[in-house]
């Protein structure tokens, strides 16, 4: 148990800090309201007036980002396999081909369903 004591202490400190901050702010903070407090928090940037087009991103950006993650995940699995290729041999090669094929099916699906078209 002793080996894990620092983790417990760290967790305890984090909990005390998080709960303590909220409680302390509620207890000792002056509650004077002004306009800025009810506005959306934008890291110091004025939330209004917004940029041209409402300041919003087209949802297509998110779709593209998610499609990128499919590649990302594939690479994450390809690296350790490439490093330990000698140890895994033919079994590993077949498994990796099956994996890559399944990921390719995901791309075929996206392509056929129009996910790669911007407009």
């Amino acid at each position, binding site marked *: 148990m002793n080996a*894990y004591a620092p983790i417990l202490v760290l967790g305890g400190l984090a909990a005390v800090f998080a709960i303590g901050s909220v409680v302390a702010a509620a207890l000792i903070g002056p509650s004077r309201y002004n306009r800025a407090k009810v506005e959306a928090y934008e890291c110091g940037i004025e939330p209004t007036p917004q940029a041209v087009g409402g300041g919003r991103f087209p949802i297509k950006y998110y779709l593209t980002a998610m499609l990128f993650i499919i590649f990302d995940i594939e690479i994450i699995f390809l690296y350790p396999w490439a490093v330990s290729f000698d140890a895994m041999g033919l079994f590993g090669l077949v498994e990796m081909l099956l994996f890559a094929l399944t990921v390719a099916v995901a791309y075929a699906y996206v392509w056929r369903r129009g996910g790669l078209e911007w407009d």
Partner: protein
Amino acid sequence: MNGTDENPLDLLPEVLLAGCAVLALLLGCWLPRHRQWLAGALAVTGCAAGLVAAAVAAAGPTGTAFDASYAVDPVTSTGRIVILGGTLLVLLLSLTSPWLRAAPRETEFYVLVLLAAVGAVLLAGAQDLLLLAAGYLLASVPAYALAGFARDGRGTEAALKYYVLGALLGVLLLTGVTVLLAAGHGTGYPALRRELPDAPVGLVITGGLGVLAGVLFKSGGVPAHYWLPDAVQGSLAPVGAFLTTVPKIGALAAGYRLAAGPLADTGRWWPDLVAVVAVASMTLGNLAAFSQRDVRRLLAYSTISQVGYLLLPVAVAGRTALDQRALLFYLAGYAVTNLGAFAVVCALPRARHLADYRGLARERPALAVALVVCLLGLVGTPPTAVFLGKLAVFSAAFDAGYTWLAVVAAANTVASLFYYLRWIAPTVLGTAPPGDEDRDGDGGRVGNGNAGRAGADPLAGGHATGDATFAGGAVLVAYPAAAASVLLGLLGGPVLDLLAGPLAG
């Protein structure tokens, strides 16, 4: 990586399911709209082939696969057969749903159902905490998409609630896995079983709690049940049937495997804790079901209370010889009975409230009989399968020295009769009124299925469009499921004996 048990044929049912899902996805991309049902037919074929493969594997020897991370034993085999059978029924319900057959994303529905079913099977067979976590994700992520499949307001609410709670409890599960890895120096169940009794008790309990959170989320037990009523009410009826049946089977099998394996010799905290959760689940599920007027919400709360009974053998796992067969038999009986009740709901898409079922016995006697059989089955009326399952579960709790648990469960069973009767009474006794039905105060949750068509008879004969009042195809599931519920109860003795057998590993 010892290379001795890496035989892909051990996983033939899972491979068939996953392969059919990938093929169906490709097929759906190239098929014209009016032939999309072929993808559904492929999914049904995959399920049926998987069932055959699972039955063959069930007759074969007990063992483990892939570096002892996956068990092939009676729990996995029964889990496979019940999950695949349940998935098959859900696919049939979907293929006969007029709304879904007209949906532009029909293929995706079948693919998602297959993938979630693979995840549930993996949960049932996982003998390694990492595989358990992977199964949890595979069973959850397609189900989130299924919950929001209709892409309407309620579906979005269902999917969002399901997803947010799933993400939270998934993190708890992963935390539990990490802590158990720290305590037991491994993730494989056989190694953990050796190590955990000597590990620090605080770590074991923390890790066990985290893993239990994941199991409770997938099975829909209190306190991880919040998503279930909204997800079942807000999503399509076949999705509700799937969510309340298939993932539960995998999760409860996983819970049993954890209790009988790595956590078996770590003290009395597990049985006591799970017993409390079970009591909370059956009591809260029943109490909440009393006041429901929406039939899907009522069925959702009914499944929460059923999970309470199903958690009994998980609590007493390893403390009696009756635990495993009680759990497996109850799971099979519950799955078929619950799917039968949902099939009746699918057959009457516009009858969303208890009052809408008034006069069903007169208008559609056979459907009413199926409904009454399934509802009385869920109560646990002899000679249905759930009756025998409950009997086996109560005896297991009694045998393990948890008499109070068996008594509380029996009392809950008697109490549950009341809300099932609230549904049965209008079905059997009432006559369908010619005009509007009185739906006084639905708690603000009036179904959108028939809200705009007040005065239309929700039981009347319809036509095969997306707006049908009677989806006749669903009776293909309702009648066999009701019959199977009774048959399984009558054949209970021999079936129960089949389900006993040692765990692998």
